[in-house]
């Protein structure tokens, strides 16, 4: 056997699946395989995280001490594993954390698809479509389907689908159809829905003749038979096939037992009945065929619309990605392309929980698996022991490929979401030379539990009322290997007990759950500190149990959680949000007005129409401007004095959801309400008692397990449809809508087989659920069932019935009795209590960092004078006005040109220079030559010339600003253009540029500074009011410049002057 022969492990519950997988992983690492080439997938991100944790943790342990390293060497059966090598491996692994491929299948596929999105025809930048938007999109598609129906085809299809019923609700009907059948639609081709034989019915004349003849049959004095025949004919005429073949003589004939009340039915009648049945058959099959086909047509139309909507939104479901990817990978050359874009070629495939793999998932993973298998052939061969490890040869080449898969068909409880355990079995035949191993030794459960598990599945087939499920049950149970446990001394205890009988006012289910809650309360009291898992089949039971446990003062947390609507405070918020969308809803108004939130929002009179309208718009504005999270957080804090701890916590969770919702937020607050109503949020605190569904318990274990919800029918609701596939790894090739048992009798043999197969699937899944439920326990397992009914003649076909068949000799369950026990009731006294796991919330510390109301040293506020144009209030339209683009461009260009000028006339740039400057500017809307002409005009204006000509300027300045004692001639002036400054003023940093800064010296003494700010606003120089207004507008800005320049040059502010030069008008407006 080669170390790297493909290996399939069937691992019963608690037998260390993850351990096996991490073994394989570690072993590959030690054989020199790069972690980026090892693909390990599972189904939940949590499980993926656990695999990684386990691999690194084991490696790190081994790297820490020689003993651990030796233990690892032993586990891997690889003597070359030393502590030093472990360190080396660990470091390599830690350096490559980003390249590990330990993930869920979904995220793997999403990753692969992203790297090829264009090639796969995915919309660029596509995202995953979440459940809620998916449901919305589906609704939209249904709506569109109904809307785009010019030919009124939909009405025809609807009537076909509804089997002649005239439902009121059409969109609901379609939505139900889509919800139930779309998944199978996606897996099939059109022909699959059209696989019915064309059986002909009798012709009208034939029919008349047969009916007449049958009518004429006489049964002597057997009035019962005569009556039955007459009734048969009525039913036949009414085309009530179900009743026709289910009752009377027809039923006997079709069952092949032509006797009625023990008297033989005359041959002639049997023959006539045969003809009628044939006729019924033809009609029934014809109708079923038409209905199935109509359903397909409807789905196909829906599909087209739905796909278009999804592509348009750029969002896809994981299922879509998987399917598209499977398609894209079906080309044998495709893998190389993926290797390239993923930077590594996946050579080693490790699959966990394989029984839950769906067909499209398998199709997508299969090319990788196939390559791994082929390459494993050329892997260096070396002897090895079971479990996949073998002695290492340091010199050997790393293996080129390998395949490993682990799963358990007994834990296949995800068929409802596409899991196909049958692939697991088929795999063995698909992979040549595959090794197999079966693990049945539990590392979890006490012998009492394991003993019970064995007993249940060995003896369950003794159940006296399995009927059509009998052979399926037998086959399933026979495949269960005998379990053993590694913990032969582990103390444990198992019971099966019946609840008291319910009195008339309560339902038995409620009574049983209440009894179970009592039991749990006493268990918790008797064995504190133990983990307790309460596993139910349905969410409703979970909610009920939580309620019952809280009534008894038992702290219980709900796995997966409830919608937040279990909090009164949250409900009030939801009413407020509903009101925001529909201020006319007086129910919500009343609710709000009479809640503590009413006074906070100043809405206390539910009849106040105007107040409601105001509040509605106020709430919507707040949600829009601040977002859902901050708004609801504010309400929470305002409500805080009114809240108990639990409501507070639920409100906090609402806030979290609200933040998460923001990206999907619309202007319709009721959409958020719907989101909250459908989203489940678990208590953040894990209480010692955790209540959950069996499905959620997969992968978990508890010291004590309580099963209180065992009485519902094992097979549940019949499916909406049945299917056929030629092989587990082949797509569905035949679909038939579900029909009840009596109609089934009329169907062709191969279709009836599909119904049988459906039975098998249902019962298998149910047994899987039972198996998972009873294998979660470490020490104790307590099963609580309803007492047997007084009228009971057969064992019920429920988990309770199965357990009674297997564990109780008589099968009877009188009320309030201990029916079965195994192990030691005092087990908890014989084992050590694990360390305290209950977390007491701790007081909130206060942060006392020094506040800085205005003296911030780091990260000061920055102000640019240019931004000080108007005050705090601004008209919103001003912020919107683009002005004209050319205006802006013109302003920038003119500034740039003016900046070139030192003093006129010497520093006047040439037209060529100016044009070059213009080229660098954004001047798309400008005619540069025009601008040039205008620029020349500006320069020609007297005030401009005066200001820009040195001697004129100095004279002017001296007159204007200086002591008359100082003559212009004594002055020297430096000109600075675009002069940068930055100064600290109070608690802000003032920074910017001065267009033109003139520094006036007398000798070496700086006398004054003068600021010139170019403005390109159009302004009428002859209108003094306009000038004054402009001056006022720019005053704060200019004052800021002055004070900054004063500070930089250490001048008194009075010595810093400023003026605006309106270049277009040619006016200078002194500010100071």
């Amino acid at each position, binding site marked *: 056997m080669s170390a790297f022969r493909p290996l399939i492990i069937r691992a019963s519950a608690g037998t260390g699946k993850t351990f096996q997988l991490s073994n394989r992983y570690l072993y590959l690492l030690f054989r020199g395989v790069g972690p980026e080439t090892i693909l390990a997938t599972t189904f939940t991100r949590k499980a993926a995280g656990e695999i990684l944790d386990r691999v690194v943790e084991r490696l790190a342990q081994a790297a820490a001490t020689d003993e651990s390293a030796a233990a690892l060497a032993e586990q891997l059966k690889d003597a070359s594993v030393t502590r030093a090598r472990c360190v080396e491996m660990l470091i390599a692994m830690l350096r490559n954390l980003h390249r590990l491929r330990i993930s869920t299948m979904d995220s793997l596929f999403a990753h692969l698809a992203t790297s090829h999105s*264009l090639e796969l025809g995915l919309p660029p930048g596509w995202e995953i479509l979440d459940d809620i938007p998916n449901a919305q999109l589906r609704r939209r598609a249904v709506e569109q389907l109904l809307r785009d129906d010019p030919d009124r085809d939909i009405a025809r299809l609807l009537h076909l689908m509804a089997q002649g019923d005239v439902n009121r609700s059409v969109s609901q009907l379609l939505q139900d159809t889509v919800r139930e059948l779309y998944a199978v639609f996606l897996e099939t081709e059109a022909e699959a829905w059209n696989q019915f034989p064309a059986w002909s019915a009798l012709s009208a004349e034939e029919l008349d003749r047969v009916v007449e003849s049958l009518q004429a049959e006489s049964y002597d004095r057997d009035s019962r038979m005569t009556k039955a025949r007459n009734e048969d004919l009525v039913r036949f005429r009414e085309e009530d096939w179900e009743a026709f073949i289910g009752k009377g003589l027809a039923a006997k004939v079709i069952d092949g037992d032509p006797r009625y009340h023990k008297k033989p039915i005359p041959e002639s009648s049997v023959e006539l009945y045969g003809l009628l049945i044939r006729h019924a058959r033809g009609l029934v099959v014809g109708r079923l065929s038409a209905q199935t086909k109509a359903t397909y047509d409807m789905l196909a139309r829906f599909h087209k619309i739905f796909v278009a909507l999804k592509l348009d939104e750029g969002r896809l479901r994981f299922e879509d990605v998987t399917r598209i990817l499977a398609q894209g990978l079906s080309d044998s050359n495709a893998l190389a392309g993926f290797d390239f874009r993923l930077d590594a070629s996946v050579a080693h495939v490790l699959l966990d929980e394989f029984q839950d793999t769906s067909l499209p998932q398998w199709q997508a993973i299969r090319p990788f698996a196939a390559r791994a298998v082929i390459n494993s052939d050329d892997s260096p061969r070396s002897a090895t022991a079971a479990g996949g490890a073998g002695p290492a040869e340091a010199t050997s080449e790393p293996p080129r490929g390998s395949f490993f898969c682990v799963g358990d068909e007994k834990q296949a409880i995800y068929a409802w979401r596409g899991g196909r355990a049958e692939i697991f079995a088929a795999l063995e035949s698909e992979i040549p030379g595959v090794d197999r191993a079966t693990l049945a030794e539990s590392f979890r459960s006490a012998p009492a539990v394991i003993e019970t598990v064995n007993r249940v599945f060995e003896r369950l087939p003794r159940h006296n009322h399995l009927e059509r499920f009998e052979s399926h049950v037998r086959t399933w149970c026979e495949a269960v290997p005998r379990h053993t446990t590694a913990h032969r001394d582990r103390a444990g205890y198992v019971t099966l007990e019946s609840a008291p009988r319910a009195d008339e006012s309560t339902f038995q289910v409620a009574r049983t759950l209440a009894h179970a809650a009592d039991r749990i309360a006493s268990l918790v009291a008797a064995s504190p500190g133990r983990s307790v898992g309460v596993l139910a089949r349905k969410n409703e039971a979970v909610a009920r149990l939580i309620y019952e446990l809280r009534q008894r003062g038992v702290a219980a947390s709900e796995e997966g959680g409830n919608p937040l609507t279990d909090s009164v405070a949250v409900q009030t918020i939801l009413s407020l949000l509903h009101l925001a969308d529909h201020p*006319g809803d007086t129910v919500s108004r009343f609710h709000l007005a009479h809640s503590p939130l009413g006074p906070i929002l100043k809405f206390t009179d539910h009849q106040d129409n105007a107040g409601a309208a105001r509040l509605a718009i106020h709430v919507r504005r707040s949600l*829009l401007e601040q977002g859902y999270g901050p708004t609801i957080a504010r309400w929470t804090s305002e409500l805080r004095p009114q809240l108990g701890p639990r409501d507070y916590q639920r409100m906090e969770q609402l806030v979290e959801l609200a933040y998460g919702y923001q990206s999907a937020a619309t202007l*319709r607050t009721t959409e958020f309400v719907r989101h909250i109503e459908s989203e489940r949020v678990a208590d953040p605190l894990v209480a010692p008692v955790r209540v959950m569904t069996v499905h959620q318990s997969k992968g978990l274990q508890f010291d004590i397990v309580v099963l209180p919800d065992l009485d519902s029918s094992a097979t549940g609701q019949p499916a909406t449809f049945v299917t056929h596939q030629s092989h587990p790894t082949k797509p569905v090739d035949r679909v038939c809508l579900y029909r009840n048992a009596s109609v089934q009798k009329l169907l062709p043999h191969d279709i009836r087989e599909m119904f049988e197969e459906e039975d098998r699937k249902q019962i298998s899944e149910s047994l899987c659920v039972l198996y998972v439920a009873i294998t979660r326990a470490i020490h104790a397992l307590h099963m609580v069932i309803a007492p047997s009914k007084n009228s009971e003649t057969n064992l019920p076909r429920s988990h309770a019935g199965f357990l009674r068949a297997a564990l109780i000799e008589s099968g009877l369950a009188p009320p309030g009795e201990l029916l079965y026990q195994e192990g030691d009731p005092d087990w908890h006294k014989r084992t050590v209590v694990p360390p305290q796991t209950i977390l007491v919330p*701790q007081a909130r510390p206060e942060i006392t960092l020094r506040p800085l109301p205005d003296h911030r040293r780091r990260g000061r506020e920055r102000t640019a004078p240019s931004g000080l144009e108007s005050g705090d209030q601004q008209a919103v339209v001003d*912020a919107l006005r683009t002005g004209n683009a050319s205006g802006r461009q013109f302003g920038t260009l003119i500034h740039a040109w003016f900046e070139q000028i030192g003093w006129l006339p010497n520093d006047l740039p040439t037209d060529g220079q100016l044009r070059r400057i213009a*080229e660098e500017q954004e001047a798309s809307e400008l005619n540069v030559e025009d601008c040039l002409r205008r620029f020349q005009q500006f320069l020609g204006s007297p005030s401009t010339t005066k200001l820009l000509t040195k001697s004129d300027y100095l004279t002017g300045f001296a007159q204007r600003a200086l002591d008359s004692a100082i003559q212009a001639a004594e002055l020297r002036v430096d000109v600075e253009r675009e002069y940068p400054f930055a100064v600290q003023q109070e608690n802000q940093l003032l920074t910017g540029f001065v267009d033109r800064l003139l520094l006036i010296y007398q000798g070496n003494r700086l006398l004054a500074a003068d600021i010139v700010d170019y403005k390109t606003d159009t302004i009428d120089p002859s209108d003094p009011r306009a000038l004054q207004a402009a001056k006022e507008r720019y005053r704060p800005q200019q004052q800021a410049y002055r004070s900054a320049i004063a500070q930089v040059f250490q001048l008194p502010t009075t010595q810093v002057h400023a003026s605006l030069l309106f270049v277009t008008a040619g006016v200078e407006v002194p500010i100071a």
Partner: protein
Amino acid sequence: MPIAREFLAWDRPALAGAVDYLLNRYRVGSIWDLRQVVVALPGARAGRRLLELLVDRADESGCRLVPPIITTAGKVPELLYHPQRPFASEVVQQLAWLQAIRGLPIERLEPVVPYPPPPTDFEKWAALASLLSRQHRELAGDRLDFQKLAELDWDVGAVWERRRWQVLSEIQSAYLRLLDSIGCWDLQTARLVAIERGECRTDCDIVLIGTSDLNRTIRQMLDDVADRVTTLIHAPREWADRFDAHGCVEPAAWSTAEIDLRSSQVEVVDGPADQAAVVVEYLAGLGPRHGRDEVTIGILDDTLVPQLQRQLGAAGLPTRWVVGRTMAMMAPFQLLAVAADFLSDDRFAAFASLVRHPDVGDFLGRSGVPGDWLTRVDMYYAERLPQRLGSWGRGNHGEDVVQQVYDRMKQWLAPLQGPARSLRDWSQPLQTVLETIYSGVDASRSTEAGHYLLAACGAVRTMLLQFSTMPPVLAAVLSAPEAIAYLLRNLESQEIPPLPAPDSVEMLGWLELPLDDAPVTIITSLNEGAVPESLNSDLFLPNQLRVRLGLLDNARRYARDAYALSAILSPGRVAKVVTGRRDADGNPRIPGRLLFATRPEEAVERARRWFAPPVARPPLAAPTVRNRSTFVVPRPAQDSATVSRLSVTAFRNYLACPFRFYLRNILRLRALDDSAEELDGAMFGTMVHEVLRIFGTSEHRNATDVERIRAVLHDSLDDVCRRYLADQQLAPIQLQITQMRLRLDAFAQWQAEWARSGWTIQHVEMWGEGNPLKIEVGGESVIVDGRIDRVDWHEHDRRWMLLDYKTSDTAMTPEKVHRQGDDWVDLQLPLYHQLTRALSWTEPVDLGYLVLPKDLQSVGLLKAKWNSEELKAAQEVARNVVQRILNREFWPPTSPAPLLLPEFDRICQERTLDRNLGEEPSPACAAVDARPPAKDGEGRAG
């Protein structure tokens, strides 16, 4: 001459060292003139801080500072050459790419886009264009073009890639030609040209600070002016070989470098709440010796921000997250989005969203629409189920207001109506539409709302300006919704920074942290994926290809981040690192690799700590003051109006739940929404009833000919549809009407036979006009209101038959509806019977349902089979109900909740875990108790 490298003191913050450097180098006497100095930093924030430090230092040392040009490294190149042409804006580049792609025949595109979007789908093509634009930008940044990639020698396995790059390179040339033709450049190309022509020069000194990663183009340009360039490296001099000649990190040297992170500085926690708790505790531990500006919280995963902000806020510390908000959250953005929806498809749903925008609401308010317009809109929808609005004229109540609102919206959006036009030409109408909504609205810059609104409008304006100045050859011709969609796509990810908050602790992103100089830094979410980043697959440039081409690859990313973390941990600073094992959704996360960049023994220890099963931290207690919330189901007011009339159906409500009866029939609370997707049961029933009523009053009511009956029914149905429904109803309704018609056809069959058997229709919607049904108890009496759908008479048998129409999908017998076990839960038919007694009818009276269910076989009569004893008992129940109502017995709500009247479940706190009916009337109740009693007749039940 190579670039000068200087090492800044490692035991002081980098910027402080840089200021020292600048002072030493440039101060001359009392003048510190940095005008000819360009200082380039990795980010803008560090630049602002540098300026603060420069100003402080100038003040301290009494010299006059002329500040330098402070910029980011990415903008230095444009200071080094004179671009010969203006740069194409983002939008122009995108549209140029778009045109370049679409210029290629579709078959030619196959290697790049095997599944091209439909030619009309502008959005998708534009998305493709920006995808290519990004590749171009990155490659050009490293002096590569698509042609070079096509020329690589590709593995056999990757021939596909070569074909792709060949086509891409064709597109690229087309793109460049296009830009050429409109006389502009993109930035990358301009730089490449400048390098090629040797045009880089400068009169300034260039000082780079902490620019540990530069692309090849920038490096080349800096090399071209190397004699003016100094790079300041914040690192101990001994690390000289960890940096290259440009002062950038050397990936190889950093790949094995140890980072000086002590294990005691690292906190490994579980989820986001635990991260927040650690931060709270840590800051609480600092005490008052640090100011709030001396602490920085590093955010590596921004989903943690809300959690942190709330927890810190609860502990008394305000914070400021520097990223602010994105445009997508802004009111004008949302406004345009819903307007586009409405323009592209004016179905009611789009209209309903549009009018719920608060700015639209205010606008409608300003334009004089009655204040309850939204309720009118909802009611209009609920009653008439329109698919779209716009055809009016049957003058139902409220319709005028709805019409007014609708017209206002149409008028407002009129500038955006009309055929497709060039993007350039949409700019003005879009602006007009926005100006209309906001005209007269002022905003205050210093309030959060005002700040964001103004900034958002500014961003819209800037983008519209780009539209309006776009070269005509590029401006695509689009419909208004397409133009808006394109506008929004370009805006959506823009971020608007928050207002300054002087008293808050700042939260910064990773890139800002190395140059931040707060004495205390807390880094949160040091997890793989956040830091260091890595790229593990790519549509165009996977990591190995990047390595080959010398692009930014994982090794360089790692080096950059390893250096960044080293700098944050440098001796002058105090730092704490938090890493979480789970994200907000409870999914596992991976630790950041940087945590393990330490001695092997230490790494082993840390790995053990990180990957071992987590030890849960106790959570922070809820800051609540009471054990139980004060939310109480409100008690009925004791002084509510006197009941003088009751409808027949009210009895059912009362029997189901007295409190819900009170809410429904006394307070007359009504739920209202617009969620209906089709006719609900009630409306379906009402319409069928109306058709049958018309039939019952028609001259053919006693016809025995199926066809005649059917004709009457069909005509009435048409009439009823016209009267009840909007012209353009929701899509499913047509089908529902077909269903109605089929049921009526079946009814016609039955009716003909019924009539043939001797029954005639005597009354429809009968009630004892002038002789009402009165129930008296203890001297008080209540009048019962109702209507018997139909009363038939059999002349031969001399019997009456009282009939009630039932249209639900499944037919239920009167017995099933009226009784549960032995209890009466509905009294409708017995009360009808009682009325006939009151009218002193002497002939025998039968009761029954005329059912029209989905199963057409079952259409027909379901007779009630109660004997007179039973009917008496029912009447006794009715008296009892009246008695209790007169006694005002409305409490408590029935538990468990009845199926009837589910709209009151919230008020009754159904399905909550802590339902509180209150021992005493709550204070809230007392408040309403004080309300004046309802006026006479107000308490009359409908």
